[in-house]
């Protein structure tokens, strides 16, 4: 409020300085108009007077010359007076923005300077916005992906690791070779037994028997796991008679099927390749060989509601009851 009062008083002072010179200038304008008016009336009347008498030509010319000199003097006086009026006494016109207007009223010189520099910045900003619109039009036209724009969130660990391209194996012989390469890694299978059955197209059924515990039937498309069904040891023992449409009749195996599907999602959506996630899944599945005699790592018991520890941690492969698992 104090700033506004000070600004008003300053404006009043400036106007008091300006008003006398403006009054003098207006008087000079009036004198100029009067001298010009008398000159043009003389010129329009010519040598004849109002009474109808004629005047001498030399005298008439001397009168006109005299009036012209008065006119020129008045014009010069007005010009000098106008030049003497102080210029830039008022601040330049700025855009009526609230903060900027307040900055103009600020006493500090830095704020005043910044306020004076704002108008050109607004112009630059508008120009930049127009340029950005044109750039977006170009990127859309060239099918640039959104991931290339600057507003994409980058992961905490730097650049996201991209999955390598998927390997597609069509022929059964090539698949068999590829699978044997995958399975013949030391300690990946242990005492698990594997059977493969060719199905339609590129789909295969992989039956894995975990040591005296369960049979896991995996439907593979190429090397990617599509579905997992876990059944009891003597349920669907023959791979050619496996019923893939029904779950196990055993409650424990049905639970493990659900856990296996959860692990499948966990490994598939990690940054691992198909082969690596397949191997991880096999390692996780292998941990079920202790299903019937391992204690839960949390409650240290074998049975909860009649179930053994059916959950295996996806990272440590340690046994837990479903209700005891760690998040």
């Amino acid at each position: 409020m104090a700033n506004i009062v000070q600004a008003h008083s300053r404006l009043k002072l400036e106007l008091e300085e300006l008003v006398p010179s403006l009054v003098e200038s207006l008087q000079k304008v009036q004198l100029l108009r009067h001298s010009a008016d008398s000159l043009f009336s003389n010129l329009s009347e010519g040598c004849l007077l109002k009474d109808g008498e004629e005047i001498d030509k030399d005298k008439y010319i001397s009168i006109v010359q005299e009036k012209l000199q008065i006119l020129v003097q008045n014009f010069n006086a007005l010009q000098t007076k106008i030049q003497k009026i102080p210029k830039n006494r008022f601040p330049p016109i700025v855009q009526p923005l609230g903060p900027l207007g307040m900055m103009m009223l600020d006493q500090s010189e830095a704020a005043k300077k910044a306020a004076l520099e704002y108008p050109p910045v607004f112009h630059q900003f508008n120009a930049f916005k127009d340029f950005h619109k044109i750039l977006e039009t170009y990127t859309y036209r060239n099918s640039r992906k959104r991931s290339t724009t600057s507003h994409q969130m980058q992961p905490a660990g730097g650049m996201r690791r991209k999955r390598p391209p998927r390997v597609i194996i069509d022929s059964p012989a090539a698949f068999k070779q590829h699978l044997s390469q995958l399975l013949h890694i030391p300690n990946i299978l242990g005492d698990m037994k594997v059977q493969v059955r060719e199905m339609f197209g590129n789909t295969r059924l992989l039956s894995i028997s975990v040591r005296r515990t369960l049979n896991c039937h995996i439907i593979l498309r190429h090397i990617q796991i599509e579905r997992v069904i876990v059944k009891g040891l003597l349920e669907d023992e023959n791979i050619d008679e496996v019923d893939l449409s029904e779950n196990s009749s055993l409650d424990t195996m049905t639970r493990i099927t659900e856990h296996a599907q959860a692990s499948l999602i966990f490994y598939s959506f990690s940054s691992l390749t198909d082969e690596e996630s397949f191997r991880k899944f096999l390692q996780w599945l292998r941990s079920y060989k202790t299903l019937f005699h391992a204690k839960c790592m949390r409650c240290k018991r074998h049975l909860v509601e009649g179930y053994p520890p059916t959950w295996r941690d996806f990272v440590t492969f340690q046994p837990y009851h479903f209700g005891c698992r760690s998040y």
Partner: protein
Amino acid sequence: MGVTVVFQWELVDGQTHQQAIQELHGRINNTGAVQEGKFYYESKFYQASDSATTRDFYTLKTSEYPVTVFARVDDSTKDKNSCIQCDSPMESLLVKLREFFTPKRTFEIRGTRFKLADFWIRPGIVTSSGSNKCVTIEIEYTPSYFADDCWPLFSELGSYILNRQIDDKPPTLMENNKQFNPGMMVQQYVEIFSRKATTQANFQQPMKQEQIQAYNTQM
């Protein structure tokens, strides 16, 4: 048929068989098991008329497998006892062979069966010639076929139901990674039928109070 173990309930002083069954039902219900109908076992002992050339044997009919008759033939060594699975018409065949095999005794077991996840629990009273002989509890775990693997589960559940310590190892006939077969179940019943009532008196080892409390809180 998964691993099946048959335990004998030891009656405390003054306890009748019916009271024992009621107590067992209460303990089984505490585990969270639910009743799933009735069960019925019938076993007959056939004695060979000429013991030099023929052997004695037991037959076992069960409501769990209504069209099957299990026949277990005695041998001098226990490991060589053989079990045969036959169709139900075998009994009519045995009637025709009654000159060679004489039916001596009949044992019956009746009771209510309970289901707890993949466990089947069948407590029942053994009767012979119209009189109650003993109380048995049969526990079957369907997913496993090797008693060595799943014995900790039997030990934990059986300890609570029977209120006594269970051996750390499975019965001898199931040891050494033998895959379970119905003959093992018949063998266990035959051992109980042929067991005298007094021989089990010293077998009972009451469960520790801390273990009971821990199990109760868990269940």
